[in-house]
């Protein structure tokens, strides 16, 4: 019997197996990129309802980044915004019959966590320099270096496990209930799963911001001070 945690290979592209989470991700990419292109084709200074909603989403993301990271949100918006939108749409893709959310596959969650891990390092080095970033591991004292290194790894794992566990557990619970009760009864659970998906998207994004912000925290108060002065 195949493990319920195993990913289903849809087809092979040469030696590369293309799994359903990858296919779903491509669909989500097409949906987000195409939708973004369609919605931003005719942006005007006097926005309509759709453009106003779009601007509200982007502005809310920026405000969230500014509040969480205490810094100018522009460099972090593409990463943070994409993480939130992708995880949100991926979690809610379970609404489409026959589609399993790609975030229910641990490879997707691991990929997201790896990107956050790499981004925290990259932004930390870019903002503080390589020396400054490395010195941040020795704070508050040199004996904290092993713990800080371990923390960087464990928190990445925690990102993976948190998102994977929540989404996967939801899928399992709905599957089990569906197999036991049938129609209609799983609907409240599906609604709860939607709420859980939205909350998990928000939590993952906020934690990503916290991790990246921790890598640049020496600069953050300075930028925040400048903003408060302006």
């Amino acid at each position, binding site marked *: 019997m195949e*493990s319920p*945690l*195993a*990913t289903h290979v849809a087809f092979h592209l040469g030696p*590369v*197996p*293309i*799994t359903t*989470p*990858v296919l779903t*991700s*491509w669909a*989500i*990419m097409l949906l*987000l*990129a195409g939708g*973004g*292109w369609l*919605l*931003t084709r005719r*942006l*005007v*200074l006097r*926005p309509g309802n759709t*453009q106003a909603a*779009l*601007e509200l989403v*982007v*502005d809310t993301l920026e405000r969230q980044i500014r509040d969480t990271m205490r810094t100018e949100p*522009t460099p972090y*918006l*593409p*990463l943070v*915004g*994409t*993480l939130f*939108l*992708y995880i949100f749409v991926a979690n809610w893709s379970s609404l489409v019959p026959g589609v399993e959310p*790609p975030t229910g*596959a*641990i*490879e*997707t969650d*691991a*990929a*997201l966590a*790896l*990107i956050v891990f790499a981004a925290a390092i990259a932004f930390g080095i870019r903002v503080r320099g390589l020396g400054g970033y490395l010195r941040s591991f020795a704070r508050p004292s040199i004996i904290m270096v092993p713990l800080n290194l371990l923390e960087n790894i464990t928190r990445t794992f925690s990102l993976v496990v948190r998102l994977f566990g929540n989404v996967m557990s939801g899928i399992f619970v709905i599957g089990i209930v569906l197999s036991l009760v049938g129609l209609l009864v799983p609907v409240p659970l599906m609604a709860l799963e939607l709420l859980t998906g939205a909350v998990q998207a928000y939590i993952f994004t906020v934690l990503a911001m916290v991790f990246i912000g921790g890598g640049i925290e020496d600069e953050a108060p300075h930028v925040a001070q400048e903003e408060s002065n302006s």
Partner: protein
Amino acid sequence: MRIDWWTLGLQTVNVLVLIWLLQHFLFKPVKAVIEARRVAAGRVLEEAEADRARAQAEAATLEARRRDFAAEGEKILAEARAAATAERDALLAEARQEAARLEAEARATLGREREAMRQALEAQAGELAVTIARRLLALLPPAQVTAALLEALVQETTRLPPEARRDLAAAPEPVVVATATPLSPAEQEAWRARLRQAVGGGADFAFRHEPALIAGGELQGPHTLVRRSWRADLDRLAHALTLAPQAGDVHQLA
């Protein structure tokens, strides 16, 4: 549980590609339009501020111009008042001059009329005096008066210059002696002798009666006239009354 590394790698690439796609097709355009709106709003605010400043400057200019107009109006009004005052003064001066001229003319006219009236009154007074004198003289005996006046005529002839007396004596025609009353031949002869004695030489005299003389007589030579009659006296009196009385006339009347 097994990790599919291909899926992990593809999903990593997918998310990275999606980051680029959303940055290119979603975040960048939306941020660009938000920034454009912010710039436009800032520009509109700056333009509004500039318009407000320009409007305030324009209002200040208009206020200054209004004050200038008011000052200019006051100036024009003051000039008009000054011009009106000057013109009024000029008209008053001209009116005073005209009034003075009219008054002078009226005074002159009045003086002339008064003089003419005075002369007319004096003429009437002279005529009245002559009439009164004539009526009074008519009460006196003309012969005696004539005799007295003829005596005065002789005395007057005696006081003539020698040249006049010689002219009378050498007159080719008889010298006419006009008398107010007719003389008898004896009286004529007596007076002829007296006059010949006064003139001297062989002068001849012819007597003629002229009642207009009232009393007295006149000696009428070719170049000499000696009048000693009341008619002559009244004429001198009337002339003296008509014209301004002269000291000589008064003396002659006396």
